[in-house]
């Protein structure tokens, strides 16, 4: 399972890098979303996978019995997903605003704030 997920992470990163190298801002953002998912999966896999053993405490005991899944990486991933969601919502709105006010999504043409060409 770990190997499979590692390969999946690699594929996600490759796809996201390909997307991010495009000139289109929207493609770039999609690439960023893929990359962020790859990072979340990395945390998940790095925290060791323990399938079929939820971190539950049986009734009447103080601690779970036997080896159970580590709940911390899952909590980290959850936090990262929520934060990422907020950031990407902002980034998408920014892309819409950029298209409306600059009239383009091609990042090569976004040069309003750059120094003027001096001839």
């Amino acid at each position, binding site marked *: 399972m770990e190997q499979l997920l590692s390969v999946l992470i690699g594929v996600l990163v490759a796809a996201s890098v390909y997307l991010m190298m495009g000139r289109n801002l929207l493609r770039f953002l999609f690439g960023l979303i893929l990359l962020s998912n790859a990072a979340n999966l990395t945390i998940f896999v790095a925290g060791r996978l323990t399938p079929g053993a939820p971190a539950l405490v049986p009734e009447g005991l103080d601690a779970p019995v036997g080896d159970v899944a580590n709940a911390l990486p899952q909590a980290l991933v959850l936090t990262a997903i929520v934060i990422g969601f907020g950031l990407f919502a902002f980034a998408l709105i920014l892309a819409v605003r950029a298209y409306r006010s600059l009239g383009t999504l091609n990042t090569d043409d976004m040069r309003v*704030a750059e120094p003027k060409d001096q001839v």
Partner: protein
Amino acid sequence: MSWYLTLPLVIPFVTAIIAFLLRNSPSGRWVSVAGSAAALVAAIALMRVVLDQGVLAGQMGQWAAPFGITLVADLLSAVMVLITAITGLAVAIYALGDIEERHEKLGYHALYQILLAGVTGAFLTGDLFNLYVWFEVMLIASFGLLVLNGDKEQIDGGVKYVALNLISTILFLTGIGLLYGMTGTLNFADLAVKVDQVENEALLTVVAMLFMVAFGVKAAVFPLFFWLPAAYHTPSFSVSAVFAGLLTKVGVYALIRMFTMIFDHDMAYTHTILLWVACFTMVTGVLGAAAQSDFRKILSFHIISQIGYMILGLALMTPLAIVGAVFYLVHHIIVKANLFLIAGIAKRLTGSTEVFQIGGLYKSNPLLAVLFLIPAFSLAGFPPLSGFWAKYIIVKATLDIEMWFVAFIALAVGLMTIYSMTKIWAEAFWKDHPDGREPALAKLPNRGVLLIPVAALAILTMVIGLMPEPFVVFAERAADQLLDPTAYINVVLGEAP
């Protein structure tokens, strides 16, 4: 006890909520000033406690470290919190005269306070994942502030700023995941212990490099600085001052924290890279500044070049070099924020920030000229201003270990800094205004609230410059704590010292 640690965080958040509720009334801006003043008092209290009792740690929710979230203040954290509060108050006062009512109604003051809370949190946290969360708090607030006006320039700069910062965030997150996989902990103190037990040192170095790149983007080091000059000249002057003073310095702080306490296993590799990065950062920054003609763009490139000095201090890793890095960090925040505030006054008086299109500031406003000269010469490293001592310590540290070439670069970059400062001076202050205007400070509305913070920060620069000894002694103690984190680890993990 832990109130000392939580108050500097709680105050800006509470202020943000009140300021947001009052965003449509003129009292909202005074809430921001009052909140910043209260945060300053809390920061001073924290500083006193840390000076008296050494490292202070608090376990949030009573979950003992390393399982819960720890807030820790050692001397470096405490001084960063204090300097954040000082800059925060200065800019909050300046904003009274700088921020348009339209932007206040959009929630400028609330976003500003959240930004300060994020910065303070990043300095106080003792947990790597928590640091990530504070980075995000800071980032989302800075996004909002950056594009508040919504004009073409801001959107353009904002896209680049957002894109590169999000990449850095994801790298940071990946690094956290891998480090957790290897050590099973994210608490700084616990990490400092556990990292030494990791067998696969090569993999640890890989993770260290992930962190170096992630924090390097935030700190705007070569070759990752491109978002900074693309964005920092677009927002309002208050916003760019607080960005210039504080945001990149959080990245530097994180680098110092990680690469002194935790990643010191393979210094021949990591710190050599840092050394090269530092040299290139200094040189590219100052050359970039020489090519610019916009007041704020020149200053933006100078941020980059000055970051190089701090990274240089970290890269050398001798006790004196770390002292220099800490001293530089503190001095730079005050000076840089002040210069951006002065750029704002210059724009109001002359109508532009393009130095070739303005002029005549010295003739009609000698006071402003003096206020500019203090931070400008301090930045360049003139004695007896604060920048001289900062540069002196760093250069002395390079000479002590006989790195002649690096010392030469550091001094040459100082010289180049003077060159671009004289460019601003000659064009904006010395020559006559091309349109024949005589910009008069006396006619400027709100000049009081604009000048008071500038003067206060300039006086602070003078004080550090004229009486450097207590500050150097302080920086020495802070550096000792960084290089020997035993006290830090004991306090956080609750073992008897």
